């Protein structure tokens, strides 16, 4: 499809940011295991043995075996990884940590909502911002307009018969000025969405999405991006990572869904990945040591993934101090091995991403109040 003016009527081809939140605290050490660190094998004798079956990324790190579909993105330099990532607060409550992370600290509104508000007309188009799922995530609170979407039906002129629509267009056609222009943009977007709904195109470039909800959501986002409806930011969740017990099966399944979904999305978008960024985040990581139930408990640092055009990929970014006991964060004398500390504040990753998406230092100051940003060099 030829590139059309986006719904805002401004004619610029905007970039799209897709934020994937892994709810339940994903085990960063399972997704991106430090295979070259002996302490890892000592702390997780059983889980580490499984981890060695994964992909080798470099001398130190590997990628979960079920995330093999992202190996190409890494080799082609489009996937960057930040380990030991998270929030500064040491709460191990899922709710509090997600809340803090999505708000961007003890702040009002969500970080992405604040960002879109701080940068008019960003996020102001009718379909500029989409949350895939049933509810608005906290990170988007305060956005100028958010569509919570599960299917494209949500974008239709609901219940409007052709006669109704024709008469509505007729009335708005008589409007001059900004209101008339806004109405024309909206009818234009409706036409594009209807085309997606009524004659769905198969994914491009032979991409194959899984049948799970997460993949289906990514497939819809790819269609919106390709239809040039002006999508600037989207959020989608992949829940279920709280792996206290026999985590291997659980994490295997989720890691596979995550990686395969993103890989299909990337393939589907093809050249449009140049103007798209995918960020994967989670509220905190899990204990370095495996527990007696073959699981892991609430920890601190986890992993963030950043994919897309302009990413300085194929490499790890940020600080990493290893898993030697003296390098870990300890909760008290009675606690066991300790936790992977947060060496890289998640805002320093998101800040780099927002820079890529046109954010100025003033926008970022509004997005992350009371935080002195030191963004990681994640992009060219």
């Amino acid at each position, binding site marked *: 499809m030829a590139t059309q003016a986006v719904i805002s009527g401004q004619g610029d081809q905007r970039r799209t940011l897709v934020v994937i939140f892994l709810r339940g605290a994903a085990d960063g050490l399972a997704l991106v295991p430090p295979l070259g660190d002996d302490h890892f094998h000592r702390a997780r004798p059983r889980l580490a043995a499984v981890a060695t079956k994964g992909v080798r990324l470099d001398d130190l790190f590997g990628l979960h075996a079920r995330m093999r579909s992202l190996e190409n993105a890494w080799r082609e330099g489009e996937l960057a990884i930040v380990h030991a990532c998270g929030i500064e607060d040491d709460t191990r409550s899922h709710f509090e940590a997600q809340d803090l992370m999505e708000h961007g600290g003890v*702040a009002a509104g969500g970080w992405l909502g604040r960002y879109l508000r701080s940068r008019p007309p960003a996020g102001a188009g009718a379909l500029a911002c989409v949350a895939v799922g049933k509810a608005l995530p906290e990170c988007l609170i305060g956005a100028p307009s958010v569509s919570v979407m599960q299917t494209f039906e949500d*974008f239709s002129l609901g219940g409007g018969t052709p*006669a109704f629509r024709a008469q509505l267009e007729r009335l708005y056609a008589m409007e001059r000025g900004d*209101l008339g222009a*806004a109405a024309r943009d909206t009818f234009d977007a409706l036409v594009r969405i209807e085309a997606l709904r009524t004659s769905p195109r198969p994914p491009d470039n032979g991409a194959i999405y899984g049948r799970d909800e997460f993949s289906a959501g990514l497939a819809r986002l790819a269609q919106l991006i390709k239809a040039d409806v002006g999508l600037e930011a989207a959020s989608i969740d992949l829940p279920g990572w709280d792996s206290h017990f026999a985590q291997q099966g659980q994490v295997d399944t989720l890691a596979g869904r995550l990686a395969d979904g993103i890989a299909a999305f990337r393939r589907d978008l093809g050249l449009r990945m140049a103007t798209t960024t995918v960020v994967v985040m989670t509220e905190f990581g899990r204990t370095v040591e495996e527990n007696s139930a073959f699981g892991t408990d609430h920890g601190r640092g986890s992993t963030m993934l950043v994919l897309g055009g302009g990413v300085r990929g194929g490499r790890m970014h940020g600080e990493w101090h290893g898993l030697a006991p003296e390098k870990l964060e300890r909760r008290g004398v009675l606690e066991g091995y300790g936790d992977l500390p947060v060496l890289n504040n998640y805002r320093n990753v998101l800040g780099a991403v927002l820079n890529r998406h046109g954010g100025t230092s003033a926008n970022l100051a509004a997005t992350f109040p009371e935080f002195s940003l030191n963004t990681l060099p994640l992009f060219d």
Partner: protein
Amino acid sequence: MRPTRRQFIATGAGAVLATGTGCGRGGEDVRSRMGLPTHRPLSGDVTPPAGREIDAVSHALNRLTFGVRPGDHRRVAAMGVPAFIEEQLAPEKIEDRLCERVLRRGFDHLSDPRSSLLPRGAGAPDALARMFPALEHQSTRVGELYEFKDKTLLEDLSRATVLRAVLSERQLLEVMVQFWTDHFNIDPSKGESRWLKAADDRDVIRAHALGNFRALLRASAVSPAMLWYLDGRVNRHAGGNDRPNENYARELLELHTLGVHGGYTQGDVLEVARCLTGWTVRDRKRFLRGRVEFMARLHDDGPKRVLGHEVPAGLGPGDLDRVLDILAGHPATARHLAGKLCRRFIADDPPETAVAAVAAAFTAAGGAIPATLRALFATPEFGAPGVRAAKFKRPFHFVVSALRATNARTDSSRDVLDALVRLGHAPFRWATPDGYPEEAGHWRNTLLWRWNFATALVGGRVRGSTVDAAGLRQTLGGDDAVMATVLGRLPTETERVAYHQSRSGLALLLASPAFQAC
């Protein structure tokens, strides 16, 4: 966390209880029990407007209310616009039983005096008050709001806000509540304001919305929710080089009083922040959570200078009132507020002459809000035909006016709130201290969701809200009357044709360009 009262009400046990206590009052809409969808039955003369343009009556209704109900035009035309304005400026004299009853039944906790910031009445002291007699005279009990789940509290507060806007006869009060809610914006998703905003809404905004600005400003300055939201609670001077937290002081000058071009300096911001050091709020980990207190040892008690006025050393908590006197009485504050009021009530780009007149009235009235508004409504600019129907309704106004125009029954539950979220204008969801924008430019891209709300409402697809389109048509006396009632004037020929050919005329009216204007 123990179950909240709302959760209890949601159970069958609650329903039985409510049924048992809710009967026996005559003349009420029985469905108003338990927050079931409610409306005010149409009564009296519902003759629609007969002018080809928006007349002075429709204009006054458009601007002073959240939308025109069937019959409103007739009533205001009969009493005259000046009398209507006077009626609305004195909300305490307006009978509003239906709205109060609905609120009491569904949202008792929002008005629960035990969670009040204000001193308690002269009733028998409860156990806590007997143990600590001093509490009876202080704002102490707001902490009880913490018993509620924060999301439940926010949803209930949002629903109550929508219900009041739809049902209340005190429409100008509700309009001004929204105005001040934006002016003193607090996003309750920050820190403990998630529990404390309910008290701010009741005891700061609602208590003073048509009162005196100076008193409103004072109430806001020591509102626990505001102390959380703008970090006043951590503005302290414990000695040495302790630098005050300027967040509240800056917004107090820039947004609440003087305005960004109000002539203050960065030095003034710092000095105001120094004056306010020591005011804090007890957090939820402590006894008497939510209580606002002045900690003398955290106050910078040295001399200060604010906007050229001396604030002598040693005033302690008295610095606060000294500063608020200086700010509330400053000419820049009068101009800033007059500009915002004129933007709300006259035009997005308000005429300078009107702003000057309103500022003068504000000053002359010592900050009395009704006198200021009376002067605004009396300006020639307010009544000028050119400003009529020239403002773009903000989404909240659109949704509420659609419910009012169709005389919908509503419980303002999830679907209505979801529509407001989608429209970007749900109550208490604006993150930054400047409040939701007033100007049309921020809202034009919401058309699709307005159209969808119109078709969903009339089509019976907004859960908890119902419209009886056929009944409305019959009561009003036909299609022409429906069109004139909803539009506030006779339809144009194009509108009339579109109404009939659209097959859903009422929805089309609500979705039409004319209904987006006020």
